[in-house]
């Protein structure tokens, strides 16, 4: 019951934040000096054509009228139409989001599954120099390497030189039949429809972007696991107590993990939110055609509604992820449950 109450309170807090986000987005996008009417009309257009287009888009109205209209539409889930594709922004985003989410979810899952054991090894390796040093060195290295550069290097090594992965051109080879669209995520759809040829191609295309993502963004997971487990394992009295009581090494470790994992959950959540927009560069390298690339295109075309739609969706997604992180905390940490009435 308490968790419902807690969720309700947290959701209440989201409302002013969403309003703030939509307001800031609107202001920033309208502040941009580039005029979409010019972009749409093309370089040879007359002033008259431009005026007509401005009128059609509502750009000649006072800014607060535009904001009122924008908020009204937003509440109804209408982000407007993209100037470029002519389709509703929301359906454009709906088409692009699954590709990014598939890559991101798989990547962070892998990073979590590999990173936590590595972090624990690093923490326990305190006495053994090599494990500790290796985990530290990896953290520094991964933090310094630009993801887009690593992606290119991997393409050079595994596509150009060794030729064991497909060309970095999207999510699926052109030689296979695309799976029926169910979720929009190509690998998942191939699996669901039993289209094995497509699944194989999709997985092949996933290898390098996934490797790039995991190598660069697993570093914070390793680092947080290491320092958190270290604090609990070597620095807390209850572990000392277990040790004195003669619990096995493994049993102690399990208890340390349970206490040391909450900060790691937070960092995974933060990474998820950050990468939803921050995956742009990796998407660009592998021509992934996802959410991030949509934003880059929208920005270069001064596509107001599309940029607004992207930013609002990404920011709301972020708030949603933080909410889930808080709820997970609530479930994992008994102290919060006791205190949150």
């Amino acid at each position, binding site marked *: 019951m308490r968790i419902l109450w807690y969720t309700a309170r947290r959701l209440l807090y989201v409302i002013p934040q969403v309003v703030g986000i939509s307001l800031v987005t609107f202001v920033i996008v309208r502040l*941009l000096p580039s005029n979409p009417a010019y972009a749409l009309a093309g370089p040879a257009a007359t002033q008259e054509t431009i005026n007509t287009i401005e009128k059609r888009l509502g750009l000649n109205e006072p800014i607060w009228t535009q904001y009122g209209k924008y908020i009204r539409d937003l509440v109804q889930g209408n982000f407007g139409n993209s100037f470029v594709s002519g389709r509703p922004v929301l359906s454009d985003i709906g088409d692009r989001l699954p590709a990014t989410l598939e890559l991101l979810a798989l990547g962070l899952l892998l990073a979590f599954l590999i990173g936590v054991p590595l972090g624990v090894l690093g923490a326990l390796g305190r006495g053994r120099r090599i494990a500790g040093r290796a985990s530290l060195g990896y953290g*520094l290295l991964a933090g310094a390497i630009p993801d887009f550069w690593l992606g290119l290097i991997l393409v050079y090594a595994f596509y150009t030189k060794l030729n064991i992965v497909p060309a970095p051109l999207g999510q699926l080879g052109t030689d296979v039949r695309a799976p029926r669209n169910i979720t929009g995520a190509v690998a998942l759809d191939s699996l669901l429809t039993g289209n094995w040829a497509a699944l194989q191609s999709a997985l092949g295309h996933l290898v390098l972007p996934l490797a790039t993502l995991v190598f660069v963004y697993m570093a914070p997971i390793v680092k947080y696991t290491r320092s958190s487990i270290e604090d609990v394992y070597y620095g807390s009295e209850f572990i000392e107590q277990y040790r004195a009581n003669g619990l096995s090494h493994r049993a102690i470790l399990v208890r340390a993990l349970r206490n040391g994992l909450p900060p790691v959950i937070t960092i995974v959540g933060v990474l998820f939110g950050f990468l939803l927009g921050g995956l742009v560069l990796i998407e660009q390298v592998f021509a992934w055609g996802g959410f991030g690339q949509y934003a880059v295109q929208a920005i270069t075309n001064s596509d107001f509604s599309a940029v607004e739609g992207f930013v609002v969706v990404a920011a709301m997604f972020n708030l949603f992820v933080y909410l889930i992180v808080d709820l997970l905390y609530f479930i994992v940490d008994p102290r919060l449950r006791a205190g949150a009435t």
Partner: protein
Amino acid sequence: MTHDLPTDPPPAGETGHVDSAAGPPLTVAVQRGELNQFTVFTRSNRPFVIGLAIVAVSIFLMAFGPLLGTHNPTAEDFNATLTGPSGHHWFGTDQNGRDIFSRTIAAPRIDLYIALVSTFLAMALGVPLGVLATGTSRLGELVGEWMLRAMDVIQAFPVFILALALVAGFGPSAVNVIIALTVLQFPVFLRLTRGAALGVRGRTFVEAARIGGAGTGGVMLRHVLPNSIGPALVGASVSVAQAVLITAGLSFVGAGIRPPTPEWGAMISDGAQSLITGQWWPSVFPGVGLGIVVLGYALVGDGLRLYLDPSRRQ
């Protein structure tokens, strides 16, 4: 293992004592002098020294890099396009025949300049606001609360996309990249400083100053601010590293610095096509330069954090 930050904490139970007793630096440290203490710390911390060396070299290159190359960094030579590394062109040439070695060491002029200026501005904005956000009067508390909620909103935006939108809208130029980075980074300094200032505010020497008759503004400026700037200093080197990466990323998608200006991200992007066809050098070398600089600032950040950690100062 001298460097390992969160490792070897004092045994359980003692940490709390050391922290709370560490208050004002002990007399021994004062007698030895801050500089002396810093030297001792530096001597025992090799990664920090490496970081400092990288930072020094990067600043030197920011000042003189464009003059030091073997060639003019922007000169094109269409008789020597995409030649591999050789005695004449140490790092090879790009598709316009520009010398990659000269361009790689000229790039800090723009990359580091942007990162340092934007970090400085973000600090200049965020640190005083962070102290201000700890106000104890009823009005002060309200202002502080609102500031934090506003920072929540700024920080909820996708960092890279916001930078991209700002730069694309106002036009790709160094000044606009600096503005975008400043907006993105100052909330971090505000939070860091506020956190530290909240701790400092209740300490005895601040109380003493207040009892001694100093006004609120004076106490904040003379006592709270200088004593809560530590975390922001650590944050600054992380922020520089982050800014270099974002600048390069923006230029990589064509929204930051444009060729022919030597800039790492734009150079990597320039070389991406050749990379697929087998010429690795136009993209690899600028990436290595970028990575080394980012690593250097990260190492300095780690070292500073360790140095300023009160439980470390025995």
